[in-house]
């Protein structure tokens, strides 16, 4: 694999790499793919909210991502374990019973970087999303939902213990 300079992960070279790469990637694993790579679209690095992902506090991450602060809402739902089986793989499912949801963000407050994942939700896509995140230690996990331009959130404490069985 080609690599951009480590010390400058956002070097301009990556754009060139990107431009030519969409069709060329190996390992189309699903059988009926063949040459349909153009159907797959091409994720654009330019839209990545890098600043939001570089913040180390809840307030700063929210500011960088949304520019505003959320109100707690019981309409935002999050399912995460009380005690993580393994901090490296913590299943987190989010959902929101709110209209016109455009963005859902998941933050792990005591991780080195606060923002864990964020999703842009086009019209017609459900707000229910499951994924797996890493938690560096016991932390509050916060889900923030942008609905009709306003922010709503809920949170849950997830305990991360050291695994006993090396």
């Amino acid at each position, binding site marked *: 694999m080609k690599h951009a300079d480590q010390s400058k992960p956002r070097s301009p070279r990556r754009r060139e790499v990107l431009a030519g790469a969409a069709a060329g990637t190996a390992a189309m*694993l699903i059988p009926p793919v063949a040459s349909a790579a153009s159907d797959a679209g091409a994720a654009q690095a330019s839209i990545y909210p890098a600043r939001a992902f570089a913040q180390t506090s809840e307030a700063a991450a929210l500011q960088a991502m949304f520019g505003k602060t959320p109100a707690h809402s019981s309409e935002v739902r999050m399912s995460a*374990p*009380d*005690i*993580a*089986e*393994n901090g*490296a*793989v*913590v*299943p987190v*499912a989010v959902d929101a019973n709110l209209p016109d949801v455009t963005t859902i963000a998941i933050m792990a407050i005591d991780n080195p970087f606060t923002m864990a994942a964020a999703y842009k939700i086009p019209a017609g896509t459900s707000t229910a999303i*499951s994924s*797996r995140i890493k938690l560096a230690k016991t932390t509050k996990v916060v889900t923030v939902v942008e609905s009709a331009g306003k922010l709503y959130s809920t949170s849950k404490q997830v305990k*991360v*213990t*050291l*695994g*006993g*069985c*090396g």
Partner: protein
Amino acid sequence: MKFAYLALALLVMTPGALASNKPDPASDLKAFQGYFLKRFPKIPLAAYVNGPYDFSKSERAQWKQIMEFPPYQFALDHGRKLFEAKFPNGKSYAACFPHGGIGIAQNYPMFDPKTGRVVTLGIAVNRCRVANGLGKLKLTTGPMADILAYMTDTSRGKTIDVTVPDNPKALAAYQAGKQYFYSRRGQLNFSCASCHVQAAGMHLRGNVLAPALGITASFPLYRSKWGNMGTLVRRFIGCNKKVRSVPDKPDSAAYRDLAYFLTSMSDGLPIAGPGARP
């Protein structure tokens, strides 16, 4: 039966040995499975292949979520490709095994009367490679774990059947494995049984200790802690290190015999591998 044992004992065992000392895998199996069934009456025998997940609702829920799209899926696909690939001489793994290697994992480890040694599925795969002019694979992780994942997957649901034949070397191997399993070792003075029999189902810091019954059924497995696949022997090495004992070599007699004994104690349970664990 008793008379047959006595006769055999007189023939093969060292002078002075008593007939009652002869390994008796069938009685051991009954006692071993009976111990768990009695101690955890709510857990049916076949459920033991789920390891720790019968003992913690929360861990079970997380596991279920993870199993929606199991993390060993990549290894499984890769293992299938490796298994089906032709060797440079045109042959493939299928030719080394009965039924082309499909649906046979439940019969391993197996005693090989020719060499008088126990052969795990991983060691059998390596034998196949050597017989076809290829080098051995590392038995703990990587391509070997992927191949074993695929072969084990073709046995999913089949009943584990590791019957110890009435052969003195097979019985000796079984007995050595049994002794290894129950012997305390390492600076922490733990046996395999300390954690996986006596303390089975209890919490050790963050995790539930899996019962020894059914524990082999899910190997090879993807451990979140490893972030990749590992075989049973990888876990043996990890457990040894954890109790501060110098581990054996992956293909050592000690680990072959241990795998033999331990797997035979799960006779009758279904294969549930490859698996996923924390």
